[in-house]
């Protein structure tokens, strides 16, 4: 083998990777936060709504789940501004896309959780005289959260990794930083080894944190 690993050039440009990772996390956190609001509102609406609303929400979920994220990113960044009079930066465009995308996945997670809350608990809430809104806030949502936490963690980690797609519209997140270093140093093996390790470690830390939250919810109040 004639190839000798040399990480020096990677360390010289490490700020591209580190800054990229921070931006990846920022994109993920904002998108997931917005997506969680979309998911919660639509899921609660879905389980209490009539046929028409259910069909519309289901159509949204199906559309998103059957179109590749990369295509949605192109559509929103290149397509949408040509149709409507909108101007936004690449990161904003990506956050918009990933929010709508994660919303669809989270609707499914929350909806199945809401439907899994045992009917007896809702009966108990009714029997002590809670109003529908109080039953939602104090009985249904807390139980739903406990049921969905493991699935929720998986979805969050998955969405964090999806931020790498932002590189295709030149958002300088982690994968984009890796590409930049590769183009400028030709150290393809080294740069992707380091980048992979960075995704891996970040993913593990996120997972560890989420599992801690899960355990807390399971054990204490």
């Amino acid at each position: 083998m004639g190839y000798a690993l040399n990480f020096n050039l990677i360390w010289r440009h490490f700020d591209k990777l580190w800054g990229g990772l921070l931006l990846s996390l920022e994109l993920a956190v904002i998108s997931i936060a917005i997506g969680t609001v979309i998911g919660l509102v639509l899921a609660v609406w879905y389980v209490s709504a009539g046929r028409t609303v259910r069909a519309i929400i289901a159509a949204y979920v199906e559309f998103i789940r059957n179109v590749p994220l990369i295509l949605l990113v192109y559509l929103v960044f290149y397509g949408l501004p040509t149709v409507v009079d909108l101007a936004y930066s690449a990161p904003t465009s990506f956050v918009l896309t990933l929010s709508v995308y994660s919303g669809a996945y989270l609707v499914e997670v929350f909806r199945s959780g809401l439907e899994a809350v045992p009917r007896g608990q809702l009966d108990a809430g009714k029997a002590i005289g809670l109003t529908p809104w109080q039953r939602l806030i104090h009985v249904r949502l807390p139980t739903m959260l406990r049921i969905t936490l493991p699935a929720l963690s998986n979805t969050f980690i998955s969405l964090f990794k999806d931020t790498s797609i932002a590189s295709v519209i030149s958002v300088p997140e982690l994968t984009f930083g890796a590409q930049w270093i590769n183009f400028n140093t030709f150290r393809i093996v080294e740069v992707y080894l380091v980048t992979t390790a960075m995704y891996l470690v970040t993913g593990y830390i996120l997972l560890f944190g989420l599992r801690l939250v899960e355990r807390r919810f399971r054990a204490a109040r």
Partner: protein
Amino acid sequence: MSDASNASPALLDVRDVSKAFGTVEVLRSVSLQVKRGEVVTVIGPSGSGKTTLLRCVNFLESYDSGSIRIDGKEVGYREAGTRQRRSERDLASMRAETGMVFQSFNLFPHLTAAGNIMLGLTKVRGKSQAEARQAAEHWLGRVGLAHKADSLPAELSGGQQQRVGIARAVAMEPKILLLDEITSALDPELVGEVLAVVRSLAEDGMTMLMVTHEMAFARDASSRIVFMADGGVSAVGPPKEILAAETSNERLRTFLARFRASHF
């Protein structure tokens, strides 16, 4: 506001209530009254409509015709006969006047024993956290679980969970307590501790309507027993009369004979 002089003397007044699930008639013109301080037990074979009747009393189930009044006030509908459902807000405040204990306990799993009791006291009765906590501790003491106030339901035995269920219901100071086969999901050795709590509530004058398969308990604790069969009331009377082996009611005789055969 309420015109007590016009109202019937019964605290709970069920009149001609009928209900069908599709083509299956689960309640056929059921009438029954429970006076203040009375303990009325409903017995009957499974599928006879006992649980459905209980669930109609606090409107967890709607019914097709007839009227159910508590303290003279129509429960689920704006007026008898109109079939116009009360608003959800109205229903909630009506339901707060009845307590219910369930076969499967149905405690809120994310709240401690005290938390389960405090939820209704703070959100429905408007008590402060401190007042609610005090009431919760008082009622947990009454059911013998003062030391379990901060335990989660998952950390309690079935019998303990059910006693919390009872405390949660009575802490709301309901006018009537509905008990739906509350010992059916318990291991035999845990039944006694739950029934002891019910007995002490009865001695304190709590009005109760219960569905049970514990015949010995029904005989000892009830003022009256209602025997239901095929969705209708087949016999009503004092325990001695209803549980007598030589009753002339053939359905009741068959039920009791079958019951004795399977329990002794």
